[in-house]
């Protein structure tokens, strides 16, 4: 399966901006990327980009398949069982370094991130990655994260 075709397909489908002219001899058209919504836009103007959406049904079956992949493809080795965080960050906290949309999570897995998240796009077909995305998005968030209090327990076990 050609991932670029897949991304372009979704980029076109989800595009709500005018095509952009890219410099340095690159083709005119919608870049195969997502809108970087987690960033600050210079001048308050977002760069034109397509949206990357999850092509799979986001249901319990897909999430369960993603959960299996999360273990068998070694995601839990860093992010912990249940993605609650281990040496890698928790993926349940609803706080995202690189954005928490389906497309942003897909991009993080596909291309990797420079602080050590490996790029799985060469090893895993996109469909597997989308299943993992569905699983991650299905996880229940932890309770009351901003405040951690020891008042009730008095510090004693």
């Amino acid at each position, binding site marked *: 399966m050609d991932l670029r075709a897949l991304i372009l397909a979704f980029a076109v489908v989800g595009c709500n901006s005018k095509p952009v002219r890219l410099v340095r001899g690159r083709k005119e058209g919608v870049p195969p990327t997502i809108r970087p919504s987690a960033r600050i836009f210079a001048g308050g103007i977002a760069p034109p980009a397509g949206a990357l959406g999850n092509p799979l049904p986001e249901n319990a079956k897909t999430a369960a398949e993603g959960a299996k992949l999360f*273990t068998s*493809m*070694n995601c839990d080795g860093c992010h912990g069982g249940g993605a609650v965080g281990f040496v890698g960050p928790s993926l349940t906290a609803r706080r995202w*370094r690189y954005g928490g949309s389906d497309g942003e999570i897909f991009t993080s897995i596909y291309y990797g991130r420079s602080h*050590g998240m490996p790029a799985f796009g060469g090893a895993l077909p996109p469909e597997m990655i989308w299943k993992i995305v569905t699983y991650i998005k299905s996880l229940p968030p932890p309770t009351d*994260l901003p405040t951690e209090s020891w008042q009730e327990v008095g510090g004693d076990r």
Partner: protein
Amino acid sequence: MRLLALVLGLATTAHAQSGDWTIPAKDYAATRYSSLAQITPTNVKSLHPVWTFSTGVLGGHEGQPLVVKHTMYVVTPYPNVLYAFDLTQDGYPLKWKYRPAVDQNAVGLSCCDVVNRGASYADGKIVYNLLDGHTVAIDAATGRELWKTPIADLTRGETVTMAPFVVKNRVIVGASGGEFGILGSIKALDLASGHLVWTATNLGPDSSMHIGANFKSLYDTGSNLGVTTWPTDAWKHGGGPVWGWLSYDSTLDLVYYGSGNPGPYNPEQRAGDNKWTASVMARRPSDGSLAWAYQFTPHDSWDYDATAEMVLVDLTIAGKPRKALVHFDKNGFAYTLDRATGELLVAEPYVDVNWATKIDLATGRPVLNATKATGASRGNVRDICPTLEGGKSPASPVSYSPQTKLFYTATNNMCMDYEAAQSTYLAGTPFLGANTPYHAGRGGNLGFFISLDPTTGHKVWQIPERYPVWSGSLATRGNVVFYGTLDGWFKAVDATTGRALWKFKVGSGVVGSPITYTGPDGKQYVAIYAGIGGDWFLLSGDYRSDDPADVRDPADFARDLARYTSQGGIVWIFAL
């Protein structure tokens, strides 16, 4: 030969001043014993901080500073900055700092925090390892980089956290990555040039392991055991990394170290003994040839690395003088071996152990408890003691006092459940296949600091601690022993009785190892890093306290640890 006066069984470097601390474990025997004696059980109560320094780094501050010729050298966790402090001037200003380029991809390939276990001084050079797989030699006087040699491959999941060990113009180094399916090996570089001299693997064919005609194993026979004790080709991703401490006997001319766990954690993917993972190796520093090896945990199914230090002491066992090697394994047994031959002399549990009932001294093998065997087909195997953190962590080295003839060590009082699953080898990603939650051991406290008689394997005294104890220890001729706790106390106890003498709250949990040295004023000083991390940054609340995106529910045990400590590296120096 410039090195090596063997005094009372302790090798020291001749060019170092006696009050200096020039290599990680103080001496080649790895005793972490200092002959300094100004600080005693009587006066230690007046010990107080005289200087502190923030390293500006949040990772776990394992390892220890060095003091050479009135200069203190501090290596930080990633990004592996090297600081040189002038101890002769008021406020100990920096002489220089060395800030290398380190590939940040290494962060994601570190199983257990981006730690560094320190530097070694030799021949005017400070030699240490960068997380991204380089060894560097820095001019100790000027801070100038003399050489930088790649020794590990990030793309295969190799990172480097151990402190180099320098002997006979050989810089001996190895890579971490037992959780990434590396092929574990050890390398020697030339001290003067940094050029690679030899590489020996810890598993695989005899030729790559540097096993020749002179190799002897008292408990195993056959050739190419590093291949034949694995399913076809599984050794190629079999782990057996090198991330702990080394020691050296100049008379026998042998370097000792332990190999790490086999991969993956799911043992059903690697039927057999998995030699020579979880083993002690005795090699010639000149060519890397293997003189003998002994496997502590055949077919390790619990992540029991053998990377803890091999302490070289001369003991009388059953009335017979022995050149001994003492090792506190992650598997919960303390072993005493003959370091010339690898003969097993004593093996007794130093914490609660239930995966094996004992070590059979005749066969050298553990007598297994079948109910604690793990594997993907066995589901969740409950209550295995100790945990994969170890009876003690190899990151927390012991000390030995020739006066009391006792060992001193941090321990963990924890057990685990172990749910293995099939794992896929993908280079550069974790090769694990197990979920292993912990719970408190007997009594509910999570750790102890203990003393132990190596001739019998019996504990002499123990101090309960609320949390796992994860610091190294320091023994002194003044009969004071030092260690630190995860909740941030730095403590002094009586070496003979274990009586608490003094403590001070150092601002973050202690996972480093204390040192002591003589200052320019002739006074005895004690130094320690604060800076919780290693495996325990997971329990200190936020994973990265500088990253608001990274928050998580507290661990389901030790959940109040975050009340007493948070991340951040501080170097502390104390004096009377």
